[in-house]
């Protein structure tokens, strides 16, 4: 009940300062819009090239920066000396191959012939890639076990 009596006069006298309220609203929204677009821009810039191909890494030789490489595992290239955790394998984009050195846990689908591999790490001058983390990119086709024959 008391709310009503308070609201009435304020809405009446609001006609004058309403323009300042409006400009304040516009300023707030502009700031918000700029912040949002800046956020979008920076987010995209870092994510724009989520990974490079093997060929791009070998030709560009990205030095002293963390990059991701995408490629297929070269069949039978995976070697690991028994008792040690360091593994070596090759990734290929079809034409170029790159030697990977990795010390860590291998994900479930790493050896699956349908998987692509995304390796996060650093490229070294001598032509090897030191992997920090491995991600497996799965095919976006899903099929039951029976129909899979190709």
């Amino acid at each position: 009940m008391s709310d009503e009596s308070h609201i009435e006069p304020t809405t009446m006298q609001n006609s004058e300062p309403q323009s300042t309220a409006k400009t304040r609203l516009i300023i707030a929204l502009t700031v918000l819009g700029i912040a949002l677009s800046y956020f979008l821009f920076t987010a995209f810039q870092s994510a724009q090239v989520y990974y490079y191909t093997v060929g791009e890494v070998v030709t560009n030789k990205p030095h002293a920066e963390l990059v991701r490489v995408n490629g297929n595992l070269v069949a039978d290239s995976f070697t690991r000396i028994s008792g040690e955790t360091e593994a070596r394998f090759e990734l290929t984009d079809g034409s170029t191959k790159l030697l990977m050195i990795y010390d860590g846990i291998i994900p479930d689908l790493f050896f699956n012939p349908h998987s692509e591999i995304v390796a996060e790490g650093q490229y070294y001058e001598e032509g090897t890639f030191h992997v920090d983390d491995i991600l497996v990119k799965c095919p976006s086709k899903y099929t039951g076990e029976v129909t899979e024959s190709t």
Partner: protein
Amino acid sequence: MLLQNRIMLGLILIAMMSALYLIFIMVPTDVNLGVSQRIFYIHVPLAVLSLIPPIIVFITSTLYLVRRSPQWDALAHSSVEVGLLFTTLALVTGSIWARPTWGVWWTWDPVLTTFLILWLVYLGYLLIRSYTVEPDKRARFSAIVGILGSINALAVYLASELWRTIHPDKVIGPAAEENALDPAIQLGILVSFIAILLLFAYTIIFRTRLHSAVNQIGSLRDQIDDLVYRISNK
């Protein structure tokens, strides 16, 4: 409860039970991913429907700014709240699926990053709403934020087309590759999608009822105040 409520809830129940039967009994286990691929049936509908509230918000917020009718504001607010629920669940189920398949819970991939921004936009919209008390101002403010924020959904949709990503391509909808899915899997995802779509629609409708209840309280208060005013002036 109204008859139409009962019909809607019955339909949701039937669709959900059929979806569960298909997901756990009928569909084949994926040859590459094993049983974790069945997360697909809940993750994909959640993620796809997360992109619908921006469309609703864009239309209703524009209508609100033109017509200034509170019902459009109510619909925009309700769809954002349900949108926040759906994006949250899509992010969580996606993360649980990513761990056994990609090997990580999260990665800063374009699809994932734009989707996270969408989640933040929903959260921001609701926070801004909760800070503004005056109904008219709140509705106007929300409408402008809603229109600006809904544009971000386009980035999520286009992310997998424009940038290199670890996220699988679309397997349903107009941009999907042909024969990406086994027929049984296709039926499973269709039924699951219908079930979650019904739930999505019903939740938004139910949420708008809270708005109309609040409005009803407002008009009752006005009536009471009016009577009290008349009595005291006699």
